[in-house]
């Protein structure tokens, strides 16, 4: 185990809203460059570190700020409006933080590790998909191989978002060499104890800053880094609910940014033709109505998840699982639709990559929402769930 490092960062004492605004400013400043170069939003993530945002979802007992899911969602939306990739990194990071901190299972060493996320502002990534298993994250081929008091983990992961930037990578694997593909555990690996051999780049239509490259991962970590609780429970009670709520929040933030640009465009058209209502204005009415439906959807599922967050049976129940799956599918469709509508309103000004009314970058980012964990797969999982759901 790595020795605790000296903490040099002083605690940022500003109120949360100011710290978030600061990070959002930096994210917005570099969003174009991050997109153009398809590179990790390092400046914005550094700003999350210096403002303490990377540990904010941890309970105060572990050195965090104990933010609620609603508060995290509101931050995710603000960052997503500024830079989609930054918002997604924030969302993915905190879904991993909570997947650890809510499932410590009484392990002292995992609790110490979780505390380091706040004290050292560690960035967490996840390696859940694997080559050769058909994209099903609830199935693994690689396994935890005991070597004395340590475990070896070798995984060929087609995607580890910002893997080479992360301080900790949470890896799914079969419990041991004899376990069934679905008998998975989650292993927390320090960057210092793993090697990542890149197997592919990340040159995509949108979300170009998430650096979601493929890697051959080889880790040798202390055996107490295996979270004792089954991944099945972690996935149902934390990973899926938090991912879907925070992703949907990022997409909502992107949609708000698109609507704001559309509104500014229509206002400027109105100034040029005072006395007549510009054609984009009626489309903008529809778009605002769609945004309101989007807001209501995200607010509703965020509140429902918060109210159930300590009720593990309810979170694992079919009724909730169907709803939280549908949130991902519907929210990803809505952000793509909002992007299409915003482009129709802003016209060639929106289509341009430059200029104050460009919606091009967010338009491209928005098309990724339905594809990252493909909606078809989620709908197929939901279809299996409702076959056994009782009225």
């Amino acid at each position, binding site marked *: 185990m790595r020795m605790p490092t000296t903490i040099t960062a002083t605690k940022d004492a500003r109120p949360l809203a100011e710290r978030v605004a600061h990070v959002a400013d930096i994210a917005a400043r570099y969003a174009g460059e991050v997109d153009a170069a398809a590179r990790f939003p390092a400046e914005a993530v550094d700003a999350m570190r210096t403002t303490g945002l990377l540990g904010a979802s941890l309970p105060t007992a572990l050195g965090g700020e104990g933010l609620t899911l609603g508060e995290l969602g509101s931050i995710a939306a603000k960052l997503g409006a500024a830079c989609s990739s930054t918002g997604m990194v924030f969302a993915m990071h905190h879904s991993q933080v909570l997947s650890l901190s809510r499932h410590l299972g009484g392990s002292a060493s995992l609790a110490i590790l979780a505390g380091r996320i706040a004290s050292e502002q560690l960035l967490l990534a996840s390696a859940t998909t694997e080559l050769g298993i058909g994209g099903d994250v609830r199935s693994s081929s690689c396994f935890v191989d005991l070597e004395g008091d340590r475990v070896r983990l070798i995984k060929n992961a087609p995607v580890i978002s910002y893997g080479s930037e992360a301080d900790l990578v949470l890896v799914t694997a079969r419990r041991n060499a004899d376990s069934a593909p679905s008998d998975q555990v989650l292993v927390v690996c320090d960057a210092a104890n793993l090697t990542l051999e890149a197997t592919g780049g990340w040159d995509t239509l949108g979300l170009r800053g998430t650096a979601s490259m493929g890697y051959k991962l080889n880790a040798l970590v202390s055996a107490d880094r295996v979270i004792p609780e089954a991944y099945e429970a972690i996935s149902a009670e934390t990973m899926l609910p938090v991912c879907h709520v925070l992703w949907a929040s990022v997409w909502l933030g992107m949609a708000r940014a698109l609507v704001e640009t559309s509104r500014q465009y229509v*206002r400027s058209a109105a*100034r040029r033709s*005072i*006395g007549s209502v510009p054609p984009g204005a009626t489309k903008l009415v529809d778009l605002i109505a769609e945004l309101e439906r989007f807001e209501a959807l995200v607010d509703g599922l965020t509140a429902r998840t918060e109210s159930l967050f300590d009720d593990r049976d309810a979170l694992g129940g079919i009724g909730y699982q169907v709803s939280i799956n549908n949130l991902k599918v519907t929210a990803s469709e809505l952000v793509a639709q909002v992007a299409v509508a915003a482009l129709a309103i802003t016209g060639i000004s929106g289509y341009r990559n430059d200029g104050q009314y460009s919606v091009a970058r967010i338009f491209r980012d928005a098309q990724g929402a339905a594809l990252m964990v493909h909606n078809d797969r989620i709908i197929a999982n939901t279809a299996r769930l409702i076959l056994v759901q009782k009225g």
Partner: protein
Amino acid sequence: MSAVDTVRRVLDTHAKLKTSAAALTEDDDLYAAGMTSHASVNVMLAVEDAFDIEFPDELLTKTTFCSIRSISSAVEGLLEAAA
């Protein structure tokens, strides 16, 4: 040209006042002088255009557009904030 003069010019073009804006004092009620709420939208857009500013939501109220003085001071506030 001062902000007040520009506002008067915008009002003459868009506010559909019963009199010339020059005949109004800075504190006269523009709605009483004949400006409809529909016309006030055009005034708002024309003022934005004239000063190259955009009114934030919190200033888009009836009181902001009720007199020459209220419009001018809102404009001056926005120009100062932008400077």
